[in-house]
């Protein structure tokens, strides 16, 4: 059993190696990379490619590690006690399972995605060390230990907003998804739009990589932006000649809003283009 990418997800050799090493050794895989390079998609595709269930735990700034394990709904219990509900006598009725618990309980080996781990508090990863290491945790309220039936394949993504603690990093494999080169990008586009006309793709790629080369952009367009843009181009049936013309005439390509999402970036593009027209 090994991951080799899927029909809609092109994985580079080293990414495949990273995923497979993580599966074989049962370690969490930490994924970083430019926005829009398919970090979150990876977990979905690994689950799909290997035919496994996917559990997704999306992290927010307010997420606590405990919520991934379980939560004790004290307020419901309090309310039930006031109403004289019978459920109140069993504390287990008020334990709400978290994503990690669900994944641990799974009959077959699941894939667990911990998405954007850096969004949470700085201490968040530290609170999960034991759980990720031993794949077990203790429920104080019911005095039971939950042990993973099958070590889940854990994929963690990070956007680099916070530095992650060393102890946490030591337990993970780390892979940085580089921005795809020309060749890989063509494969990716082909996987998504197999019917795309070669000529249009060629022109679109020229425009796309041209924009990425402008220095000083606040947000460089990434894979997902290119795919969106191609989607619009094909739906509006823009002929490749229009793209070529926009490139030759040094004009904004059609539907540039899909690529440049920042007013200042659009202006920057304009300035650069005009400069190159004047022959700087």
């Amino acid at each position, binding site marked *: 059993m090994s991951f080799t990418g899927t029909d809609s997800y092109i994985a580079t050799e080293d990414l495949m190696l990273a995923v497979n090493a993580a599966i074989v*050794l049962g370690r969490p895989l930490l994924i970083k990379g430019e926005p829009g390079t398919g970090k979150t998609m990876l977990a979905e595709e690994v689950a799909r490619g290997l035919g496994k269930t996917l559990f997704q735990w999306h992290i927010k700034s307010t997420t606590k590690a405990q919520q991934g394990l379980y939560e004790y709904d004290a307020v419901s219990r309090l309310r039930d006690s006031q109403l004289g509900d019978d459920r109140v006598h069993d504390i287990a009725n008020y334990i709400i399972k978290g994503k990690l618990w669900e994944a641990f309980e799974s009959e077959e080996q699941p894939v667990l995605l911990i998405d954007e781990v850096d969004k949470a508090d700085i201490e968040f990863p530290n609170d999960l060390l034991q759980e990720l290491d031993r794949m077990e945790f203790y429920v104080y309220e019911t005095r039971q230990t939950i042990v993973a039936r099958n070590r889940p394949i854990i994929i963690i993504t990070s956007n680099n907003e916070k530095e992650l603690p060393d102890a946490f990093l030591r337990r993970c494999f780390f892979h940085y998804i580089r921005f795809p080169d020309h060749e890989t990008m063509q494969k990716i586009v082909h996987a998504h739009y197999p019917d795309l006309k070669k000529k249009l793709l060629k022109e679109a790629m020229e425009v796309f990589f041209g924009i990425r080369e402008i220095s000083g952009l606040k947000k460089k367009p990434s894979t997902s932006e290119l795919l969106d843009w191609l989607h619009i181009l094909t739906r509006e049936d823009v002929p490749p000649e229009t793209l070529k013309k926009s490139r030759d005439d040094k004009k904004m390509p059609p539907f540039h809003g899909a690529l440049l999402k920042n007013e200042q970036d659009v202006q920057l593009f304009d300035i650069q283009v005009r400069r190159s027209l004047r022959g700087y």
Partner: protein
Amino acid sequence: MLIDFFMRLKVASIPVTPREFLTLLEAMQKRVLPYASLDEYYALSRLCLVKSETHYDKFDRVFAEYFRGTVFDPEKIIKEIPEQWLRQLAEKILTEEEMRSIEATGDLEKLMEMLKKRLEEQQERHQGGSKWVGTAGTSPFGAFGYNPEGVRIGQNESRHQRAVKVWDKREFKDLDDSVELGTRNIKMALRRLRHFAREGAAEELDLPDTIRSTAKNAGYLDLRMVPKRHNKVKVLLFFDVGGSMDPHISVCEKLFSAARTEFKHLEFFYFHNFIYESVWRTNSRRREQRFPTLDLIHTFGSDYKLIFVGDANMAPYEIESSGGSLEHHNRESGATWLQRLLDHFTHSVWLNPVPEDYWRYTTSVQMIRQLMETRMFPLTMEGLIRSIRVLSK
């Protein structure tokens, strides 16, 4: 061989630990590498040992240096790679018959000999550009950049078309250390300066207090509320504008916009080169609308934190002499004015967009650093974090 490599990473100040090294060995033992090539070994060791893309460049350099220094002759490679790699390799290169005959005798020596012979044959075919030693990655010795005379890996001008390996390309060089300051990064750093306090209307449920008073109330709910926590930190920002600061405008803008969204109590002022008896809030009307420095002291409490941003590049007399200012006649020296501010406000730092390495060449930088009692930091991610540590003490 691998321990030596590990030690070199350590020397290159990549934070590697024995635990990660053992993980790498475990991964190799479990045959994670399907082709056992150096390319894959590179990817795997990086996966296990390096935990931040900022270290990728350092890692690439160590890897290239370490494996370039070794001249690979087949004997040596074969001795150095673990036996299991060898077997996989043999399966790839030798025919089934040959394999069977070797397996029958179980003779490793013979296997080596055969491999060597085959590799020499291969080399000729490779010159013809056939798939034997190619980039498809099926042949480990292709990845090793093998040549019977002992070719070194990663010679940039090599005639092997793709001899420039990933680690030689150093694609991660711009990710190393000198982290670019984006507003998000700055915001994250500034966030450390937060100081929370409860103020205002009570709108949050105070659970411990509710439980306590409910218990007192014979089990009937008695809800208790508390005010929300707010970031109470107060900041005064001073920007040096014009002249030598022009190249640093973009980084200052970023700092400014990040600070603006992060702090509710933020006041900002501009100055030119150094602080004298007045500063201003809008650059277009700097002549008419001045804000006296003394008023800063009277208006803002000493709990405001001062951040100066400037390159501290000027003539020494602009700091220490009265009348030293370039733009007007100042009756008291800039140093006096700065000292007044420092006496009133207990927390202050100076952020300098010029790289730290250049500071010692400029007298004025040294002088200001002394005035600030060394609380001058470079305007990089790392410098910002250091300065915030000082500010939040």
